């Protein structure tokens, strides 16, 4: 059997497995680490707000405390109803995270199914699905979101649906093109030869091997979904008051933009930092998953 030196040598030069190699490249990517750290901090803030901040605390009015500038007691100041903006902003993190992750899950699941079916079978099925996706994509994204929220009514759940539906074409397209790349490789042929069903081939052979571009899109789409939802809320097509969603907070602050710009600064800053974190993590993932793109 192998000696101690042999083991040392083989450990040092061992070829890392696919996943370990990706993890290694991700670990050495400063942007990805920074993004990941920020996301963890935001998750901790969300956890803290769920455990320690009551809904009553952030919605109760207190006329005496109206429009206070930032101070030690109220780090972000107070709004026109005397509510502490710091607590409201912390409380609001849950909405954005839920919308980002929930919305993207919807578009991912539907896009994954449509795209892999289109790419795998080709022909008429492919044509039908892709034309449907083209049609959905030619409705301006924002308008689609507004109409969906109007139809379903204003709520967190419906905002998630609106944001999710608008990104379906993008996920369909990306899944389809990565399926097209994988489909003609020999291991798919082999799976076919041993009698696997089409469905099993798609989900055990094709999709896992074409996953990289999809993972990258998921990460950066979460950021885009958060911005989109904030913009819908800003225009009054989001979660109804008094829920302190970040886009809604900015829109409320807009009424006092001359006298109390702090009401606008802080919630917007939180949106930007969160989205930024997902974007740099997405960039890092892209570099880690696709060494071709790097250099």
């Amino acid at each position: 059997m192998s000696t101690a030196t042999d083991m040392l040598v083989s450990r040092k030069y061992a070829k890392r497995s696919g996943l370990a190699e990706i993890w290694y490249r991700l670990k050495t990517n400063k942007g990805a680490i920074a993004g990941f750290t920020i996301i963890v901090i935001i998750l901790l803030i969300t956890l803290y707000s769920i455990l320690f901040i009551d809904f009553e605390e952030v919605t109760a009015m207190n006329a005496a405390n109206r429009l206070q500038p930032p101070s030690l007691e109220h780090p972000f100041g107070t709004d026109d109803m005397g509510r502490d903006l710091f607590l409201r902003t912390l409380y609001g993190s849950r909405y954005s995270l839920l919308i980002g992750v929930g919305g993207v899950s919807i578009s991912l699941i539907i896009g994954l199914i449509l795209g892999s079916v289109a790419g795998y079978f080709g022909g008429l099925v492919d044509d039908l699905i892709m034309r449907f996706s083209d049609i959905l994509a030619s409705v301006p994204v924002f308008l689609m979101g507004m109409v969906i929220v109007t139809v379903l009514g204003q709520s967190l759940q419906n905002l998630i649906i609106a944001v999710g539906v608008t990104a379906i074409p993008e996920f369909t397209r990306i899944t389809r093109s990565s399926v097209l790349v994988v489909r003609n490789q020999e291991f798919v042929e082999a799976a076919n030869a041993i009698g696997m069903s089409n469905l099993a081939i798609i989900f055990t052979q094709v999709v896992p091997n074409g996953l990289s571009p999809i993972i990258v899109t998921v990460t950066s789409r979460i950021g885009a979904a958060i911005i989109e939802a904030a913009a819908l809320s800003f225009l009054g097509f989001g979660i109804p008051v008094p829920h302190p969603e970040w886009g809604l907070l900015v829109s409320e602050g807009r009424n006092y933009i001359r006298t109390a710009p702090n009401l606008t600064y802080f919630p917007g800053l939180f949106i930007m930092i969160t989205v930024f974190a997902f974007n740099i993590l997405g960039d890092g993932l892209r570099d880690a998953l696709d060494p071709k793109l790097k250099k």
Partner: protein
Amino acid sequence: MLRYVIRRLLWLIPVLLCVSLLIYVLMDLAPGTVIDSMITEQMTPEDIEKLRQEYDLDKPVIYRYVKYMWGFFHGDLGKSQVTGLSVWDSFISRFPATLKLSLVSVVFGAVLAIPIGIFAAQRAGTIWDNLTTGFTLIGTSMPSFWLGLLLLILFAYKIQLFPAGGYQGPSSYVLPAITSGLMMTAITARQTRSSMLEVLRADYLRTARAKGVPERLVIRRHALKNAWIPILTTIGMGLSRFLAGSAVIETVFSWPGIGRLTVEAVSQRDVTLACGCVIMTSILYVIILLIVDLLYAFVDPRIRGKYASGSRKRKVTA
């Protein structure tokens, strides 16, 4: 080439039918109807019934949709259900504001983005590259309404350099154009950087340098020419998105464009006006994408050749 253009324009018909059907039926499903705000205390049930009949609310939605589309194909987009004004007139009166702002924003965005992208690509891996990449990442992470409000606070309230909104005179374009332009700059600069990076590694660039072609010309004649297509796509996508009217930016800067018109129509359940706006913006969207596709042929002789030979391979959308 002409056959291709005709085919693409014919594709508009199913797009319009599906998109309008989708929006019409969805808007119709929304709780509340357009007559809710017209009903007053004094009205008898007969009056209300008459009102319902006037808007065809007693008939199935498909009847209203077919009637609407019948009008549309005869050049009549119908009347707004709220104001009673012609949808076409409302759209056309708001369109110039959106068109002008879109063009200014796209030019501003592209003029800034392409040099930034080239600059970063040439210095790939250096601190300059990281700085510009950081800048573009922050740009794509900023909600446009927030950036707009920040610019308002700084340039309209703190130092009163530009008007705080409205649509009079060239100075009113500055802040909204910077807001939407910067959003586009961030995306286009990233695209320019990555497509330049692909090209910069090519052998023919080394050949060009070896021949003694000055670096400036290497970039402009040899590299940029081959990196144009993805850049053009990004700019085209940006323009088509702006032309649909940026509801957010138009709201922040009280800009009387079609973005705000559409928001108003949707929130007032004005089915005809909302549908008209959607149909018109979808037409614009498809046409802009067609123009961008045709521009490819203009920039890249290989694509031109493909049209000429008539054996257009099915475009694989990647």
